[in-house]
């Protein structure tokens, strides 16, 4: 049913509809409202789940790892430093191939301390072996959360659902919350094939010697690559239930004859979509990168055919290197016949607004005689001491 809901409340409702059995989280802005809402649902008896209060994000991640390994459907959420504090456990959850769903309410990383949005937190753990799906709207956050449990459980891999903090989590807008029947039909009860069970004892998390470690990494990498099919299938099958798609691995929207594309991730896509109506010329395609891991290199190559220029806009960077997504897109396009020129920008760092006017500027940047390998937009050098410019 369509309701006017704060993003966090809608995400909590979506989680509850998935019938998780164990929840554990430590509050951190802007994730807090999600777990507060879940705690209320548990306290009010609307959600039958064990809500485990912990003293840190490290423990929250450990609790859901243990719970899922023992066969419970488990969920946690965090942001920024909370994600970083979880990092050791995040690698363990993934390496042990235990299905867990985590919402990352994206927030910039300290230092300098910022309470505002960017995506440096989830991007910093992109290599932890989790599936990472990014949401462009609160509706996608709801639908992706539901899909995430099915993907996690079918692939036996954890899924991180990344939602721009504040921009989505704190915005109230009309959001369709599916019915319990719809979710139940889509998401069967959780059965973990390697469940810890005293009647069938197994041991997990053992020391792996050099004779086997590479094989374990190979298998994990392959599992993530194979997950592409499940991510697409979950989106397709959920559309059969509710009539909406969230964009599979990568979705493309715009006129077929457009020669310019903008590839980006997260909530700025809506802003760019509105902007394109205000600035219809030149025509441009919007490429929505939904799955950062697994990285949809094939889909990107396919989507870039016929483009002369591709602008990659991201909300994080690899300091000392440049763009994270930009580098991976260039790598995906390397060796293609007539690939588009790739212009790479980071923007929206630490809560800097990305207004509609960013769209014509990106299109203008695509006309530059030499493509921008990487730049942070709108850096005001006069704010810096001479030596830092």
């Amino acid at each position: 049913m369509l309701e006017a809901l704060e993003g966090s409340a809608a995400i909590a409702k979506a989680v509850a509809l998935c019938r998780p059995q164990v929840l554990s989280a430590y509050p951190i802005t802007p994730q807090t409202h999600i777990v507060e809402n879940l705690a209320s649902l548990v306290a009010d008896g609307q959600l039958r789940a064990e809500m485990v209060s912990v003293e840190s994000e490290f423990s929250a991640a450990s609790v859901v790892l243990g719970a899922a390994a023992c066969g419970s459907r488990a969920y946690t959420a965090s942001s920024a430093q909370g994600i970083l504090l979880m990092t050791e456990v995040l690698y363990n959850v993934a390496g042990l191939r235990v299905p867990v769903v985590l919402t990352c309410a994206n927030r910039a990383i300290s230092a300098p301390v910022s309470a505002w949005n960017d995506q440096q937190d989830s991007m910093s753990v992109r290599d932890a072996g989790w599936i990472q799906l990014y949401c462009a709207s609160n509706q996608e956050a709801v639908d992706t959360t539901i899909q995430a449990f099915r993907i996690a459980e079918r692939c036996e891999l954890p899924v991180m659902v990344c939602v721009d903090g504040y921009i989505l989590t704190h915005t109230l807008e009309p959001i369709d919350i599916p019915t319990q029947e719809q979710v139940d039909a889509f998401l069967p009860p959780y059965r973990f094939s390697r469940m810890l069970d005293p009647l069938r004892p197994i041991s997990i998390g053992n020391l792996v010697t050099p004779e086997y470690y590479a094989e374990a990494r190979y298998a994990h990498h392959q599992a993530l690559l194979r997950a592409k099919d499940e991510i697409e299938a979950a989106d397709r099958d959920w559309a059969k239930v509710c009539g909406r798609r969230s964009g599979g691995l990568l979705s493309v929207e715009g006129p077929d004859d457009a020669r310019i594309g903008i590839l980006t991730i997260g909530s700025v896509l809506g802003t760019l979509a509105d902007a394109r109506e205000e600035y219809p010329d030149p025509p441009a395609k919007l490429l929505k990168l939904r799955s950062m891991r697994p990285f949809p290199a094939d889909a990107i190559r396919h989507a870039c055919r016929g483009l002369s220029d591709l602008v990659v806009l991201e909300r994080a960077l690899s300091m000392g290197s440049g763009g994270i997504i930009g580098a991976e897109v260039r790598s995906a396009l390397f060796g293609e016949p007539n690939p588009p020129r790739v212009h790479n920008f980071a923007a929206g760092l630490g809560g800097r607004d990305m207004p509609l006017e960013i769209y014509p500027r990106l299109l203008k940047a695509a006309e530059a005689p030499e493509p921008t390998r990487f730049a942070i937009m709108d850096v005001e050098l006069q704010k810096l001491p001479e030596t830092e410019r």
Partner: protein
Amino acid sequence: MEQTLTARALHPVRLTEIRIHGRGGQGNVVAAYILAQAAFEQGRFAQAFPSFGPERRGAPVSSYVRLADRAIQRHCQVRNPDFLIIQSQGLLHVAGLTAGLKPQGGILINSARDLPELEAEAADALESRNVIVLGADALATGILGKPLPNTALLAAFLALTELLPLNALEKALARRFKGETLERNLALVRAAACEVPAGLWREVAHA
């Protein structure tokens, strides 16, 4: 790869944007959420959000509402609001209070004082602006027993702009309050709406 085909809209989305100024802890975000909820109850499209960042009790804060004739996709900040709702006259001295307000835009202020007095005190913010003053604290104290200005300000705002009928606001309040609290809030809606010239800002709101 998925190909999403959405019909191109015939015109860019038409928006009315409102910025609400208050102090942390005074229900600034709640006011924005109630207004967006009212639009939703009326079948309109709406979006509401706070000024992002840490929450600080007592500090000047703002929240934002967008109302539209179709789905709002953008998630950027409101830079050029059509209207300001100011929950407390004490905020008139906050720098940048009217920043970005469209030239023809309206300002609704909660104050016990009259307009000439406020203009004399805060000429920078109010000079040559469309300003309406509402004694929302007194109205609320009389009906709710507490100086909670939100309901009165929202009712007056809808009466001035006719953006939504008052019963949309009443439905939004009914989602949040029950029993006597709701009844008193509904009485406050009717009382506050009569305090301002009906439809005075209609043209600006429907431009």
